[in-house]
């Protein structure tokens, strides 16, 4: 292994690690705020990437139907509740948010040929299609059982994951796809060739992480989320709605997931079920951070990316084994180091 190979492997590891880090942050965020271990995180990666693929191919993405269906379902449930409580204005608001907005989006997609739009607009459309699914899933699957135990929430997560994966197969088919690269630029750094797309992934990830930092440190909503994560009851007593915090954290998680998918889709072939494994590696990072610490989770995820890259060079047949075995010493170390508290 010479310097050039080491550099190229490092570049590859950092690129993947940056994506894992984003997902790890989203997992920690969702867990801290709602106690949900968000297994469907990976599905948002696949949905984001494949929705963009459909848009670029000039096809109507299947996620649109899911958006319309979930929106209608929520509008029916919440609308009925609002009517029963005679909150007509609230009912109107619900219908316009959950039904009219998705319909407007659908109308836009029908009216304009998405395939000819510039890339940033396509990415924006894909995000608008996928991100609302996050809070909608929270509303339908998690909000009614928000006070349940972690185990129940985990079981619901598995159910949501399997359902979304099946829906993904229905919408996008069994075969994988790639999107067009954002840039064909490549730089030479010493002996190694740096690809523009890889640099873009790392830079965007760093920017997103910084944006998240400012969101949590400087904005009232970010502070509300942090307060909920620290003490749910205390936050509620201070007037922070648990539902709002849940919706917000799921929106963020969906945004991060879908955007990660869009970032990596030019580098690799994405399948309807690719997201799960990518999410799982983010999860290993999140575990290293104890599902609580953001910086440690991000560092852990980058470690996973690097480990994966170098082990694929040295022992490609055992790559997955090496990556997932990492979790055992980490769990051992954590269980020895931290005092265990039984929930409930």
């Amino acid at each position, binding site marked *: 292994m010479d310097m050039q190979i080491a550099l190229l492997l490092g570049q590859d590891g950092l690129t993947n690690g940056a994506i894992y880090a984003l997902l790890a942050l989203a997992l920690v965020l969702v867990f801290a705020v709602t106690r949900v271990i968000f297994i469907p995180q990976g599905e948002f990666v696949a949905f984001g990437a494949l929705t963009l693929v459909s848009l670029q191919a000039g096809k109507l993405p299947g996620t649109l139907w899911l958006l319309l269906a979930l929106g209608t379902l929520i509008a029916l449930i919440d609308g009925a509740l609002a009517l029963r409580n005679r909150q007509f204005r609230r009912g109107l608001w619900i219908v316009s948010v959950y039904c009219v907005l998705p319909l407007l989006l659908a109308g836009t997609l029908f009216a304009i040929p998405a395939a000819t739009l510039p890339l940033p607009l396509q990415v924006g459309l894909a995000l608008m299609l996928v991100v609302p699914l996050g809070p909608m899933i929270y509303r339908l699957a998690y909000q009614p059982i928000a006070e349940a135990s972690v185990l129940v929430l985990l079981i619901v997560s598995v159910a949501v994951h399997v359902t979304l994966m099946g829906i993904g197969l229905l919408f996008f088919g069994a075969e994988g796809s790639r999107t067009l690269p954002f840039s064909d630029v490549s730089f030479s750094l010493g002996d190694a060739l740096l690809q523009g797309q890889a640099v873009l992934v790392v830079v965007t990830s760093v920017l997103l992480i910084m944006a998240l930092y400012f969101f949590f440190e400087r904005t009232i909503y970010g502070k509300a989320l942090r307060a909920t994560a620290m003490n749910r009851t205390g936050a509620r007593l201070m007037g922070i709605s648990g539902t709002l915090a849940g919706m917000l954290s799921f929106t963020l998680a969906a945004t991060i997931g879908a955007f990660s998918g869009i970032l990596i889709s030019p580098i690799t072939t994405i399948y309807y079920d690719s997201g799960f494994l990518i999410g799982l590696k983010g999860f290993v990072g999140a575990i290293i951070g104890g599902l609580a610490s953001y910086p440690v989770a991000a560092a852990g995820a980058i470690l996973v990316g690097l480990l994966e*890259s170098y082990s694929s060079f040295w022992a*490609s047949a055992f790559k997955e084994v090496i990556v997932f075995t990492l979790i055992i010493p980490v769990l051992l170390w954590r269980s020895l180091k931290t005092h265990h508290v039984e929930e409930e």
Partner: protein
Amino acid sequence: MKREPSIAWLLTMLTAALAAPVHADVNVGVTVSATGPAASLGIPEKNTLTLVPTTIAGQKINYIILDDASDTTTAVKNTRKLIAENKVDVIIGSTTTPNSLAMIDVVAEAQTPMISMAAGTRIIEPMDAKRAWVFKVPQSDAQMATAIVEHMTNNNVRTVAYVGFANAYGEGWWNEFSKIAEVRKIQIVANERFNPTDTSVTGQALKILAAKPDAVLVGGSGTPAALPQKALKEKGYKGIMYQTHGAANADFLRVCGKDCDGTFMPTGPVLVAAQLPNSNPIKKVALEYVNKYEAAYGKGSVSAFGAYAWDATMLLGNAIPEALKKGQPGTPEFRKGLRDAIENTKNLTVTHGVFNMSPQDHLGFDQRARVMVKIDGGGWKLVQ
């Protein structure tokens, strides 16, 4: 008390009359992987089974098609269900080698012949009392590997690197290929693995580049097989690329794009049916299938996998008239007769080759069952 026996007797007669019609239909049970990781293979197989003839020798054929979701346990469950509930006379399936291997015990126990659409040699070898009931239609890996090694020696390839799936498919190809390459004095300089679900194979690609092989063989199936090829091209690899027949479908071409131009792969003749010489008897049979399939599912939709399902039913079409002489459908005699008739298949031209089966060889293909093709401008070109 006197009338009761007569009513019971009447009922018995009625049931007997309903249960045993003079000419029972032939029930064919099918389990395919129409969903899950092998779906790109299973879907064309399932599609093909909607186009096959429903009467053979004046006998109505019922196809009962189940999906096993590329899952071994489900494949076995489907097989048991088809045999116990649907009383099938023969099983077609499954799509993948692991599924087919798991089904062997079930069909042998029920004495029901089975025709597998998976490639693994171990489905029919070594021949024993259980595998006596099992046949398969796709070419074996060994046949395809021989074709690749032959092409390599003809093109002065001295060193070769192998990168394959980290599963039974990649391992099977490695075993066959390394054995034959060694005999032909081709040196293997790298042996790497990757997972179909991997998002990056940079490490493997770099290791292969460092070994500087004349050619690289990718042992993968479906679109994931495009990943190492794209990574190698991106890192500037200039040698000859080989793929296996598992990658021979339109989706692979779509995902791999121009990075796959100039790639060689062995496959069944059906994929390049129109380019076959007119003297080849396979051409007529293969074209008939291609035209039928593309009329139903669109131009360019045909793949080698759907043709396996077609070949399986052609095998049945040839054997059922013989088996009918032995017994009625639904009886053990018929199933035994069907097994014997399939085993005695001689000179049956199908879309993938010519079957000449024997008690020792339950595939019965020779060199006519494989051609080398080259990917050229997003299509398949027959290499003469």
